[in-house]
């Protein structure tokens, strides 16, 4: 066990835990944002640099501060480590810079993008970024690529977090999806434009923090905040079958996995559940999904009202009794 202090909060965590995961054990504001790290995908993290933190004391044995800001997702804790996240101005300033870098080649086509409203980059930009862009040069663009019937790839929006390639590597049997070229020219692609037809390939849509990979069956059918997210499940042989249905009226527009508060999927779901079961009758609906009140999706989304069942007969009896008593 190692004793760490993050933003003045002391905690004891198992050896080998990363700073990010230690912060997540406590939760709240001290958790650094993460765009590329995904706890369910082995090897992810260390790419986007949004989770930079300052280590003002390396360990109990060697109390010197670390010379530079470190990515909290891939730095393990040491006994006696003191970490500053939101209490350090350096970190906040650096994060602002990182957001600016991520947005340099991002097309800012949020009005068109299907991810708008549930986009990690949008949230990150609102929370840590500048209101204006200082970038004046032409943005990097890619040729449009077709990667199959169910998934739409917008390479221009990609921030190269590599999460989708880890999904392709770890969830699917054969690797058919990766990053080609280097540096500024790096792009996500399926080798030789091979269509992805693995049963779990759809999860790269949920895993993508931006709108680079989106659901083709949902494409432009509604903005996310006009749909109602409902928890639902069905018996599925391939996956757990626990999903979120995004409904409009009685129509199921989209099926996604359930995401926790850090935007990570609780369980990966199969393509059959995601793309083919678009009828309410296919599902057992459990109730409205909990949506963070600060999210635009929480507009007109009521979680409590649906659960209140008023027993009118009982209520009338009570009133009658009260009236009779005078």
């Amino acid at each position, binding site marked *: 066990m190692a004793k760490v202090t993050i933003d003045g909060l002391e905690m004891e965590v198992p050896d080998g835990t990363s700073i990010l995961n230690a912060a997540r054990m406590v939760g709240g504001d001290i958790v650094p944002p993460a765009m590329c790290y995904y706890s369910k995908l082995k090897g992810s993290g260390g790419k986007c640099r949004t989770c930079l933190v300052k280590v003002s004391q390396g360990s109990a044995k060697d109390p010197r501060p670390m010379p530079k800001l470190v990515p909290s997702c891939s730095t393990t804790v040491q006994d006696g480590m003191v970490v500053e996240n939101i209490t350090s101005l350096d970190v906040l300033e650096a994060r602002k810079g990182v957001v600016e870098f991520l947005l340099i080649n991002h*097309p*800012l*086509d*949020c*009005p*068109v993008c299907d991810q*708008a409203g549930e986009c990690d980059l949008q949230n990150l930009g609102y929370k840590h970024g500048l209101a*204006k*862009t*200082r*970038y*004046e040069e*032409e*943005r990097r*663009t890619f040729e449009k690529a077709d990667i199959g019937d169910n998934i739409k790839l917008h390479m221009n929006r990609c921030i190269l977090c590599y999460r989708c390639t880890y999904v392709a590597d770890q969830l699917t049997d054969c690797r058919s999806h990766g990053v080609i070229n280097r540096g500024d020219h790096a792009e996500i692609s399926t080798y030789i434009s091979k269509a992805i037809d693995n049963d779990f390939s759809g999860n790269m849509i949920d895993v993508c923090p931006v709108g680079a990979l989106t659901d083709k069956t949902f*494409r*432009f*059918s*509604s*903005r996310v*905040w*006009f749909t109602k997210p409902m928890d639902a499940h069905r018996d599925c042989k391939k996956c757990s079958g626990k999903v979120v249905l995004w409904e409009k009226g009685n129509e199921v527009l989209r099926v996604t996995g359930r995401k926790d508060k850090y935007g990570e999927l609780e369980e990966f779901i199969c393509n059959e559940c995601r793309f083919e079961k678009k009828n309410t009758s296919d599902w057992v609906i459990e109730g409205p999904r909990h949506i963070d009140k600060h999210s*635009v999706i929480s*507009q007109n989304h009521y979680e409590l009202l649906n659960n209140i069942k008023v027993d009118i007969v009982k209520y009338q009896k009570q009133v009658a009794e009260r009236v009779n008593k005078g």
Partner: protein
Amino acid sequence: MQSLTNRSKVVERKEMTLAERLYLPAIVNGMVITIKHLFKKKTTISYPEVQREFSDIYRGHHVLKRDDDGAERCTACGLCAVSCPAEAITMVAAERKPGEEKLYREEKYASTYEINMLRCIFCGLCEEACPKEAIFLTDRIVPSNFERGGFVFGKDKLVEKVDLRIDVSKRQTKSVLEFKTHKQYSHNKLINK
């Protein structure tokens, strides 16, 4: 009982004087007031022959603007609908097909766009929310109608005609116009092409 204010007056029932009992002076007094008004300037006008001057910031009938090439600017992002306090706006998005580049500016467009003018409170929040400078409130009056359905304005009534552009220059403040000239916003133009 103690009164709450000291404004109440005790009514006196005096006997009327002779002049009061005749009523004639009171009638004459009243007529003088009436006739005086005949020669005063009228406060009403006979619309629509005569129309009042509009304020520069009058908010009336909406318009969905086209860009300089005649393509619709609206991309059905839904921000007007989500900002609308009266929930008067609904829309359905569609994907632009190859060959329609001259009709719609971006790859997504609104295939239907409806504003319920009975719900609309003309607050201008849709205009403020619009990231594409597509919707504006103009100095036109929403025409009356005999049926409720007639107040649901679709794209036929909202989108400006290519040959009959609607001037919204008064709605664009100095800061907006300056914003458009910044080189750092040129990425908006890049996408359009």
